């Protein structure tokens, strides 16, 4: 079954063709990151404009690379949320046109289910499994007892982990996005600051990063006032150690409570090398999987993979009334 994936929820315009849920025939991603860099974050209006500009080109490349015609496609899977609404609507309407033009069924897919299924492309899945979803918009622990069943165990009570990285990076003058640069500097610094590990021992599977973020920012501010030398490397190491300690600790707690067979880490922050290392060091009894780097950040292959399993599970498609949703519950049935 050939699934055409479409993803435009933030600042990547992406189209992909995936066969049977894991054979990626093409995965074209037009990234806007260089455009948004100068603004210190994604500007929604600019993101929407860029999606319209690139949309047909990305479709064209994806079909050419897959060496297929639209008539060969069996299903269209498009991200319906959560995300930037103006951005989502471009991908959704483009996908609807293909659906009507070639009479191909279409389904709306939850963005996070895509990030989770990014792992299926490389490793497959064994249930029950635990998914740690970490990105600029999400920090969640999700239990899956079977394909396309999601049970949210806990989530961040304030900032998403990627958001905390961006804000800390901004204060340290490291630019946007914050994750990759902090990750790089963290390898060279020392953990000289003992930053807090919020909620690490709380009696649930929730997270909180806003307190940690403020603590780091205040520390930086105080040192500036006292004219002390600031080494962004040591800040990066100390911050990253605190963040990853919490993420790994909570994951271990959930793993033990639910006795899962594997752990998958999904979302943009899954690319973080400090997190990858600590997870693998501290969890050795069951496999811990991370998606390949190209499938960590937003891409349409993961949406096609998720769409394939969503369609297999529910056996029905959506109609042309699909709408985009800036907020969307993962657990809600379609």
């Amino acid at each position, binding site marked *: 079954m050939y699934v055409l994936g479409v993803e435009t929820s933030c600042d990547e315009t992406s189209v992909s063709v995936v066969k049977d849920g894991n054979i990626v025939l093409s995965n074209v991603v037009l990234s806007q990151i260089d455009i948004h860099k*100068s*603004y210190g974050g994604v*500007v929604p*209006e*600019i993101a*929407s*404009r860029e999606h*319209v*500009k*690139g*949309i*047909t*080109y990305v*479709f*064209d490349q994806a079909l050419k690379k897959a060496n297929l015609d*639209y008539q060969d496609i069996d299903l269209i899977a498009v991200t319906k949320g959560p995300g930037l609404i*103006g951005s989502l*609507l*471009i991908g*959704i*309407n*483009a996908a*609807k*046109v*293909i*659906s*009507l*033009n*070639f009479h191909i069924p279409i389904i709306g897919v939850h963005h996070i289910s895509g990030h989770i299924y990014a792992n299926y492309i490389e490793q497959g899945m064994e249930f029950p499994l635990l998914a740690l979803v970490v990105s600029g918009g999400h920090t969640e622990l999700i239990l899956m007892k079977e394909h396309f069943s999601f049970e949210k165990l806990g989530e961040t009570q304030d900032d998403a982990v990627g958001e905390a990285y961006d804000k800390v990076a901004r204060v340290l003058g490291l630019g946007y996005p914050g994750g990759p640069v902090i990750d790089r500097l963290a390898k060279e610094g020392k953990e000289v600051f003992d930053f807090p590990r919020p909620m690490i021992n709380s009696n649930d599977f929730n997270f909180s990063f806003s307190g940690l973020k403020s603590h780091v920012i205040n520390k930086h501010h105080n040192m500036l006032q006292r004219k002390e030398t600031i080494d962004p490397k040591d800040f990066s190491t100390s911050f990253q150690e605190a963040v990853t300690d919490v993420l790994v600790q909570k994951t271990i707690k959930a793993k033990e409570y639910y006795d899962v067979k594997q752990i998958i880490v999904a979302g943009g922050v899954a690319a973080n090398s400090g997190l990858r290392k600590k997870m693998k060091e501290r969890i050795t009894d069951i496999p811990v999987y991370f998606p390949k780097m190209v499938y960590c950040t937003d891409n349409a292959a993961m949406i096609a993979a998720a769409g394939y399993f969503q369609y297999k599970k529910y056996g029905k498609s959506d*109609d*042309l*009334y*699909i*709408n*985009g949703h800036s907020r969307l519950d993962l657990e809600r049935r379609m």
Partner: protein
Amino acid sequence: MKKSFKRLVIDTATKYMYIALVINDLEVGYVYQVGDNNHSVTIMPLLEELLQKQSIELKDLDEIIVGVGPGSYTGVRIGVTVGKMIAYLNGIKVSTVSSLALMASHSDDVNVLPLIDARRGNAFMAFFKQENHRISYVEEDVLMNIDLFKSKHKEPYDVLESGKPQIEKVLNSDLLTEIGNIHELVPNYLQVTEAERNLKK
């Protein structure tokens, strides 16, 4: 029998959605309805219905005419995306037209000033004249203070803030621009984003 020439017109830059099917210069079916933030949800089902009534498929179309704004940023992107995709998928010609020109064609007055509110006393506006059933620009699309723009035009004119286009008039005008490379089709926002303006400061 000579094959008929089928054109689809799409404009979603204002509160009203306009989609029309034109066969051999005659509007054989259309949708013109208000839908504040709903164009994205309704355009494809409505288009499907419009085509079905004439037993036409998207792949039967010969040309797409898209209203490219100015107007609501979110709104205009919907129509442009849909039009761009149809033209790309079927390899057919696409022409753009100002959404203000489409609106102006509704009027039968000699002088027409279409206006799309842009808040704080500003609007997207243009000024058209109509002679011998032909519509043409007197002043092209601008975003500016409403009173200032109006004060420049002394002759009596019809001010429009909505109105179903008389599409035959537009098709017989010089107001259409053919797009050579479909991938280059984008809305005419008439304004850079606030973020870009602030960056230049």
